[in-house]
């Protein structure tokens, strides 16, 4: 009895709180922590798979990592390409989704339908559907989403000629490459930014109207209003969106496919684990750097 009395109200609530999060805590320990530790162990060992379904691990140090980085035919390249792609896409996806969110937030006829259309890509995100969609995209001749190379074939337009003109105009080659690359992948980029549009849209709607009214009364132009009100108010969500973009990108990236293939086609668990660990480390590093850079510039309203 005495012990029961000693439980203060806050202690009781602490216990209840722990009970509430208990399912997740167990799952986290069993499925995440344990798996992470095991994955690192796998990557440091040579795994032999037994016929009955078990495995035997022999410690071989960093050999798997060395093999993945220095000797494997494609891993290096795929990893670097994925990182490059995601770094190139992020600024554009963020810019594009903010821009679209602002447009969708204005009043016009048929806004409901347009919103439905813009959220459609979320529904089209399945692996099998995506593959066929990409195929179908390539088949639309003359569509904006056809790749530059194919455009030049089907429409008899010499894209290279225009590229030379841009270069002669004195635009840096890297910039021209960046823009043409974006145009060629416009479908993927539009598709990849639908959740980001939703998040920005929600952010825009949560900005108090009174701020805009104030700005109007003070005679601010639309340009000033954007930079002094809209942008600072949605800036915390830029970080959220960047993180979401990076994570989402790596869920479907080729690195995952490669690690999967190595594990379940070649049955080289050790190498696959090393690849997963390496790519995860890289993703986490990017996330830490990017969020450190962005959160410095972020404005928090509260």
């Amino acid at each position, binding site marked *: 009895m005495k012990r029961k009395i000693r439980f203060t109200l806050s202690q009781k609530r*602490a216990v209840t*709180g*722990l009970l509430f*999060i208990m*399912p*997740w805590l167990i*799952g*986290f320990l*069993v*499925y*995440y922590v344990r*798996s*992470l530790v*095991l*994955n690192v162990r*796998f990557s440091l060992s040579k795994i032999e798979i037994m016929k009955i379904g*078990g495995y035997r691990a022999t410690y071989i140090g960093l050999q798997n990592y060395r093999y993945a980085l220095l000797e494997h035919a494609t891993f290096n390249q795929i990893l670097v390409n994925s990182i490059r792609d995601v770094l190139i896409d992020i600024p554009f996806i963020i810019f594009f989704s903010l821009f679209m969110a602002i*447009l969708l937030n204005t009043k*016009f006829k048929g806004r409901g339908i*347009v919103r*439905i*259309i*813009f*959220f*459609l890509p979320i*529904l*089209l*995100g*399945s*692996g*099998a*559907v995506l*593959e*066929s*969609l990409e195929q179908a995209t390539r*088949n*639309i001749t003359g569509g*904006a*989403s056809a790749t530059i190379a194919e455009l030049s074939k089907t429409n008899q337009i010499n894209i290279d000629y225009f590229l030379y003109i841009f270069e002669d105009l004195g635009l840096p080659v890297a910039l021209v490459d960046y823009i043409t690359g974006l145009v060629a992948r416009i*479908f993927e980029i539009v*598709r990849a930014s639908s959740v980001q549009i*939703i998040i920005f849209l*929600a952010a825009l709607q*949560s900005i108090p109207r009174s701020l805009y*009214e104030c700005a*109007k009364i003070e005679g601010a*132009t*639309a340009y000033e209003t954007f930079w002094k009100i809209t942008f600072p108010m949605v800036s915390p*969500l830029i970080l*959220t969106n960047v*993180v979401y973009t990076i*994570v989402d990108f790596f869920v479907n990236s080729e690195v995952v496919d490669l690690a999967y293939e190595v*594990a379940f086609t070649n049955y080289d668990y050790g190498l*696959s*684990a090393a690849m*997963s660990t390496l*790519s*995860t480390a890289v993703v*986490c590093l990017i*996330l830490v750097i990017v969020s450190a850079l962005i959160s410095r510039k972020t404005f928090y309203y509260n």
Partner: protein
Amino acid sequence: MNARNVMVYYRKINEKAHDVTFRSGAFGRVKLVLFSVFRAVIIIGMSYIILGPVINIVSNSFFSGSDVYNPSVFMIPLNPTLENYRRAFVRLDYFRTLGYTLVYIVTITLIQIFVCSMVGYGFARFDFPLKKLLFGCVIVTIVLPAHVIMLPLYQHFRKWDVLGIIEAVTGEAANLLSSETPMYLMTLFGTGLRSGLFIYIFRQFFRGLPKEIEEAAFIDGAGPWYTYFAIMLANAMPAVITVAVFSMVWQYNDMFYARLFSMPTSHILTFRLSTLQATVEFADQVKDPLISQLAVYAGITLVLLPILFIYFTLQKYFVEGIERSGIVG
């Protein structure tokens, strides 16, 4: 000054302010029209980019073999046929597979809502030691790519056991692969497909609700569990709908876990779709990939229909829900 006067005055100010921004007169009107045209062009263009492939797929699914090789056919088939649909229908075993899939995703979604809202509530309203660290771990589960835990999970479910009990009873650890059980288990313990994100959404939402409701319930003698089930969950409808739609759509589209746990293709519609082309080529003796591709287009249309239906029925609440469910800060 009574309320109506204030309103009139306010409106006047507003109109003036409007004039300031858009500079009254012809110039302002031209600017407005230009903006509308610009907006229309952008929105129509982007809608085309999104809808183009979908329209292409749907129209292609009605093509017959001769249309594929007829270069003058674009979008509208000359000899429309339902043959592709018949093939896709039979080879997907559509209604049966769809039934299994729906049962699977609805169950998973219900578990997700239940577990994630509970955990989110725990994080939002209770103080316990290491709370910040544990919530950091939730964020980690959102951010961590799933493939880093893929192999250990595979091994775990290959020889699944709880403290050696199953082995003691049946003599052998259970093999849970080739079934949906691993996904049910993981979802039940809050680590299913994007559970971390759902926990985050619920936590943000519950934090935004006023504390007074719970205090009132507490004074009236309701315990924390009763408060959560009867009061908080009922108030969390926007968040619940957001999570329900996301969970259903993502689970429906998920191939990663379906492939990893080698779930039976006869139960998972999208998974079955990925092998449709091979099946049609083999079973219907269609050797031309361009023609067997048509059956895949029909299959995609069939696979998209139910999820589109779910989305259209829920989308009104969904968009509203997202705007209120505290994903934002």
